[in-house]
């Protein structure tokens, strides 16, 4: 099977500070790959680099195309979307306007219907300014924006971080629904959530991959717990 996302020796960071060092991995179609590691390991920096928000060295191929140097809008048009951990909404824009932007000219009514069927609260709050949503509702909006565009790859940064368990119960089925349609690179610190959703894991330490393999085997061998322990 041809990998939908191929990352080869990617290094990136901020200014002169290198945060991600020579990371290589592949994501197969409809595979959920978990990127794990302690705070500061370089997980979010890796996702930002893949989305064109940070310059990097190395090569990244998305659905066969080399995307090094591409801007974020071009990467999204090529089928990769990002669900960030923080700063997920535009202040002053309504929920409906967020969906309009995400859909980029695709059928709005169909998109709203899809988002509402996944998260009814989104359908109820279309005219509400998105910054007035709760943290959990913002996560739902972020996931809905990714889901409605039928992406090839979704980069998801700690989607269950900092939200109530009752909201997590709603988010998990949505992530599973997304994983049935697209490949997912999931940054997740919660081992149980990662094991429940993922098939393969890469563990980052100081910007480098120190463990990789089947996530259940890594979990059974205690590797994940050991690597993620404070």
């Amino acid at each position, binding site marked *: 099977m041809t990998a939908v996302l191929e990352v080869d020796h990617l290094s990136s960071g901020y200014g002169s500070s290198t945060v991600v060092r020579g990371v290589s991995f592949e994501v197969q179609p409809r595979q959920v790959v978990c990127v794990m590691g302690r705070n500061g390991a370089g997980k979010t920096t890796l996702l930002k680099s893949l989305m064109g928000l940070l310059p990097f060295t190395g090569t990244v191929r998305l659905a066969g195309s080399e995307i090094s140097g591409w801007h974020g*809008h071009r990467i*999204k048009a090529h089928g990769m979307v*990002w669900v960030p951990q923080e700063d997920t909404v535009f202040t002053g824009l309504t929920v409906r306007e967020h969906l309009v932007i995400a859909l980029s000219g695709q059928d709005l009514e169909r998109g709203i219907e899809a988002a509402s069927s996944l998260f009814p609260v989104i359908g109820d709050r279309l005219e509400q300014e998105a910054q007035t949503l709760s943290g959990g509702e913002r996560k739902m909006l972020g996931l809905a924006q990714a889901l409605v565009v039928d992406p090839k790859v979704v980069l998801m940064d700690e989607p269950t971080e900092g939200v109530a368990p009752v909201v997590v119960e709603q988010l998990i089925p949505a992530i599973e629904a997304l994983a049935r349609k697209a490949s997912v690179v999931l940054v997740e610190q919660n081992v149980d959530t990662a094991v429940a959703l993922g098939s393969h894991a890469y563990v980052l330490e100081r910007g480098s991959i120190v463990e990789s393999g089947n996530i259940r085997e890594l979990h059974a061998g205690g590797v994940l717990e050991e690597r993620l322990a404070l």
Partner: protein
Amino acid sequence: MIAAGFLPVDSFNVVVLASVFILIAVGLHFTFGLLNVVNLVHGELILVGAYTAFQIQESTGSVVAGMAVAPFVAAFVGVAMERGILRFLYERPLDSLLATFGLAVIVRQVVQLLFSPNPRTVNDPIGGSFVVAGFNIPWWRLVIVLTMVAVVVAVSQVMTRTRFGLNARAAVVNPGLAETMGINTGLVRAGLFALGSAIAGLAGAMLAPINTLNPQFGLLFLVNSFLVVIVGGKGSLRGLIGAGVVLGGSLAVLQFVISTVFAQIIVLLIAIVAVRVRPVIGVRWGEWRQRRLRVA
């Protein structure tokens, strides 16, 4: 008592000067208010508009044609600056400040080389005035007021009802997130700069018939443009209109009572006080709005 002396004959000037303040600041609303570029070349974009009107008047005899072309010329100059230099400096505010200062000097010198430092005039396309209820209203000044209203309405509609406006509002708030949501933020920024420059050029062409042109013409408006945008609150069109009315109106009234220099000093003091109290008003407004949203 003294102020009453100019009523009703000249009181329309209060409306005109408020309109001028708003018109010259709307362009800066885009480049400084939304794009965060301390755009010291804004005055020179007004200058480009004014001299375009002058040049076309000289070449074709039609000042109206000059006024129609001026926004496009200013937009072209603005976009060339943005694409050529300023787009690399959005994250470096001090460097962009220096760049716009340098560009302003270059544009002024080019205008001086092309047109000489001698004063030039642009004809009033309509001329004359009329009297309504004792108010003496020059036709061209009325056109300036109406143009200001049309520009503000058009800008408001573009920003709230078009896809470009939606993309622009998103890109201004969070450019990184906007990019990953599929918005070409480079194109949006160039579009906003073009719009701001075009409005500056239009303002220059419209104001040329009521002023004498020289290469320093744009500097007349630069400080007041920044005052209006800062007092109104960066990025707020409603605030800009309020600030234009208060500052422009105050200057017009004060000029009848005291000398222009003292009038400008008092307007600056008003601006300082307004900037000081605006955050408090903003907090109260935000609280009121949150309460309303919760009720809804």
